[in-house]
């Protein structure tokens, strides 16, 4: 909605972009209007807003925000969450980027101050759409600085509807990235502004925006490397000026001091190698400026001698310092992590990272899916920018090249590519429309004629309409269904909502002891903590690999071995996801090999992956499956009582629809566990660990006390 106001504002000033405005309105019904509708779509569709807030990671953010608003900022910083990562607990204040929670808390505080009583939950739900509006505005401002107003307007339209960004900004997606992209774009706008003007005012603004970015997302590393790179390339291109000197010197010092104020970041900016480029460029810029100064004072001969002496001395000093610091371990050479493709790095080092789908490289299909026409037109924008180069266009070219590399390496980083693609595409479209809309400006040159011009314009508009339609389709299909509610379609196209997750979490909430500890695979940790309000062992943010491996070991051992582990971890309930009844493929049996692999990484003597395969090397759940698999805890919990169940007349009893196989072990009995709850479609199954020995105090607590 902001965009439409913005559009009118620009239109009243600039008659040349009238038709662009029309184009934008064209988009606005399918796009910008649709954008706000679609961003809020999931929230409206499900009855309560709570549901839409329930994607896995986000529940944690909401819980922390709730803690912040009810207990105050300092209490939040010192918060020790004993419900997470049982029995270790988690210090939340020092291990999160607090920007998101503080922003939501601040909005809530201001609204309450104005006597508008809004629940913090509603603030959280609508935070992402609000920030996507702000992102559109800052993209407009940045593109206007780079090219012109018309391109800015188009860029704002694009970013408002592009699927690559909508994925993070639907209502209810209460996520760091949602606000971070606004901070990113706004920081870049202020940076370009300060390079253009050379005024300390804009630079300080840039630093404050950078500070906000640091507080919001770990991706701030991208900024602190891109801006020095820009300065460095400007130096190489001999585009050094006082403006650049003032802007970068101020930015580096103030930005550094501000970024170190975030507890989670701390002293990283002066220790780790990913921040070293900024320091190096800072030193280089000072040296360059000093040489410029000397050049005015000395003769050419003297200057040359001094120059070579100075350069070799400086190079030697830097080299020795780096070696010394690396040697003493104060400075880690972790740059490899960024240069070598992360999936490959991760595959070698930690199976847990390789198991997360967001760390995969990007296929061309996901580029096209997320960017549609923009992906084929933005190179044209890059071409125009480089052809008409100036200080700030150097910046956007570097931004595009680095972002496209990172997006290619990791699907998740598509998010940082999206804004620059919108800007460059807007530049490409705008420089075409500029010449094909309206009358010929130059009278001395023969024009192309109205026929050709209108054909080109029509076709271009068709393409843009296709883009708007695509965005609407993607948003309504792919990105706006809350992940906690599954939808299935019948043969006649009608939709069933499977509400098993919520059913199970509410069962946990209502029927178990308040301090009960629930073991599950880490994907469901935040959901259990957030929706059932029970203590979990591992969750989506657990970085303690051995802890996860222990849970994996329990799941993949036989019942009695698993019981020992569960006793030592004080587990009261075990929760698993089973999709065999409805054919849901994201269930725990399909994830099971990852549990085995992660467990094997830490306990190679007890768990071996090859034991879970048939001699032919297949992973099968039917009779031919390996006996280790057929008797492990996860298998037994998933298929308990399933052997008696006949789903269909055509299939035998105990037929697993997900894996299309009749299960191999139908006679499952438990000794140490009992079934506590199974949801309507068997999607969630909860087992109670039998409490043997009435006065069992937790062995861990006993150990801790003694």
């Amino acid at each position, binding site marked *: 909605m902001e965009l439409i106001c913005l559009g009118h504002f620009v239109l009243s000033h600039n008659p040349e972009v009238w038709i662009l405005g029309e184009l934008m309105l064209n988009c606005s019904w399918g796009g910008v209007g649709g954008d706000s509708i679609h961003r809020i779509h999931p929230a409206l569709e499900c009855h309560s807003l709570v549901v839409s807030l329930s994607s896995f990671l986000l529940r944690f953010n909401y819980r922390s925000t709730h803690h912040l608003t009810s207990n105050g900022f300092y209490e939040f910083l010192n918060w020790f969450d004993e419900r997470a990562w049982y029995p270790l607990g988690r210090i939340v204040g020092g291990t999160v980027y607090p920007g998101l929670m503080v922003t939501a808390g601040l909005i809530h505080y201001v609204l309450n101050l104005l006597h508008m009583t809004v629940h913090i939950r509603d603030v959280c739900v609508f935070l992402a759409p609000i920030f996507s509006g702000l992102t559109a505005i800052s993209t407009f401002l940045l593109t206007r600085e780079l090219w012109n107003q018309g391109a800015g307007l188009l860029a704002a339209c694009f970013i408002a509807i592009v699927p690559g960004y909508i994925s993070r900004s639907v209502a209810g997606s209460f996520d760091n990235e949602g606000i971070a992209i606004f901070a990113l774009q706004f920081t870049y706008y202020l940076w370009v502004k300060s390079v253009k003007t050379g005024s300390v005012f804009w630079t300080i603004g840039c630093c404050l925006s950078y500070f906000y970015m640091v507080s919001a997302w770990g991706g701030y590393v991208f900024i602190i490397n891109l801006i020095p790179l820009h300065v460095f390339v400007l130096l190489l291109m001999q585009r050094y000026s006082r403006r650049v000197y003032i802007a970068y010197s101020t930015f580096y010092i103030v930005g550094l001091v501000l970024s170190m104020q975030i507890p989670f970041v701390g002293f990283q900016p002066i220790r780790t190698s990913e921040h070293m480029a900024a320091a190096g460029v800072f030193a280089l810029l000072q040296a360059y400026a000093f040489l410029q100064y000397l050049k005015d004072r000395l003769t050419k001969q003297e200057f040359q001698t001094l120059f070579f002496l100075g350069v070799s001395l400086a190079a030697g000093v830097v080299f020795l310092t780096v070696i010394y610091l690396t040697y003493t371990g104060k400075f880690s050479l972790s740059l490899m992590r960024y240069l070598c493709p992360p999936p490959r790095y991760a595959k070698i080092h930690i199976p847990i990272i390789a198991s997360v789908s967001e760390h995969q490289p990007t*296929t061309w*299909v996901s580029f096209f899916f997320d960017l549609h026409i923009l992906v084929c037109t933005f190179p*044209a924008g890059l071409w125009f920018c480089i052809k008409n180069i100036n200080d700030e266009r150097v910046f956007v070219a570097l931004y595009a090249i680095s972002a496209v590399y990172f997006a*290619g390496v990791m699907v998740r980083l598509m998010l940082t590519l999206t804004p620059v693609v919108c800007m460059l595409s807007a530049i490409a479209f705008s420089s075409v429309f500029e010449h094909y809309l309206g009358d010929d400006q130059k009278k001395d*040159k023969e024009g*192309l004629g109205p026929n*050709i011009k209108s054909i080109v314009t029509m076709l271009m508009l068709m393409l843009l309409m296709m883009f708007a339609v695509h965005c609407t389709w993607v948003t309504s299909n792919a990105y706006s269904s809350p992940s906690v509610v599954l939808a299935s379609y019948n043969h006649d196209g009608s939709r069933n909502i499977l509400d098993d997750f919520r059913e199970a979490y509410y069962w946990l909430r209502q029927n178990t002891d308040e301090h009960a500890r629930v073991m599950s695979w880490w994907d469901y940790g935040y959901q259990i903590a957030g929706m059932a309000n029970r203590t979990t062992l591992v969750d989506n943010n657990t970085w303690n690999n051995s802890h996860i491996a222990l849970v994996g070991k329990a799941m993949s051992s036989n019942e009695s071995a698993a019981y020992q582990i569960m006793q030592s971890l004080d587990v009261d309930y075990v929760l698993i996801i089973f999709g065999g009844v409805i054919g849901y493929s994201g269930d725990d049996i399909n994830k099971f090999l990852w549990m085995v692999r992660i467990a094997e990484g830490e306990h190679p003597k007890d768990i071996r992956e090859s034991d879970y395969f048939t001699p032919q090397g297949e992973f099968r759940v039917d009779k031919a499956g390996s006996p280790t698999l057929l008797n492990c805890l996860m298998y037994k919990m998933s298929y308990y009582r399933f052997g008696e169940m006949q789903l269909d007349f055509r299939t035998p009893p105990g037929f697993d629809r997900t894996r299309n196989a009749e299960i191999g072990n139908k006679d499952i009995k438990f000794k140490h566990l009992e079934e506590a709850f199974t949801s309507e479609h068997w999607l969630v199954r909860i087992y109670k660990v039998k409490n043997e020995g009435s006065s069992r105090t937790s062995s861990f607590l006993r150990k801790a006390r003694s």
Partner: protein
Amino acid sequence: AVGMMLLLKNVTNSLLCTKTLLMEKVGQMMDWASKRSVIRMNGEKFRRFVKAPPRNYSVVVMFTALQPQRQCGVCKQADEEYQILANSWRYSSAFTNKIFFASVDFDEGSDIFHMLNMNSAPTFMHFPSKGKPKRADTYELQVRGFAAEQISRWIADRTDINVRVIRPPNYAGPLMLGFLLAVVGSLVYLRRNNLEFLYNKNAWAFAALCFVLIMTSGQMWNHIRGPPYAHKNPNTGQVSYIHGSSQAQFVAETHIVLLFNSAVTFGMVLLHEAATSDMDIGKRKIMCIAGIGLVVLFFSWLLSIFRAKYHGYPYSFLMN
């Protein structure tokens, strides 16, 4: 007593015979191994040196199908790893005649495949120095993969011989870099009086565009995952260049996408040039038509490929 003597003589005789046979066999094997780290065997050699009993050495055999008409991509990769392993053993200081590495190609020894009842290649088998191969002597390729380190671990498991895998360092990367630097350096040196070309915007813009197009067409995915160039259906012989699923891609497919993306980009640039350049009006009109044609045609083509891969996508433009 004479009978006893005769028997004894016979036994010693046969023992001696075995001994010389064994010596001969080991000598022959060592001779081959010194020529090639992986001994290539046909059916007859295999029976004589691996199957026949007097043996005090283990043999690891890779059963494979390397002939090009067999179209076994995995065999080639497995073969490379196997060569690395065998070379590491051949040139290590611990090299002895306790273990040999051999390979049997399907087209040279298909009777062996039938004899061992084997119907898939590549397969690694270990023939111990004593007794028949057990179940664990067949390497679980599906589970453990064919990395040389994995195979060496398996060998250590079966024979107590540790082969330290030494990969020959990959000189290709540094060499390419050096070559590139040399070319750039010599160019700069040749043109040292006139460095104007460094300020050539077209060249820089072209390089930037190449990089961007390479990245957006998913070459990084190819680099990490290493998919085949295209898929040939073994039954019909039909070659498909486009992978059917949206989760994966072929190399050929990414080249097509690269081409289409650059065509659309080129069309946009042409449109802009047609409106701004100083050429005569006829040429500019042709440029303009060509530009819009390129943009519309290749974009709709791209959309149709996307539609074929992303099942359930409803929209298309100009072509299905």
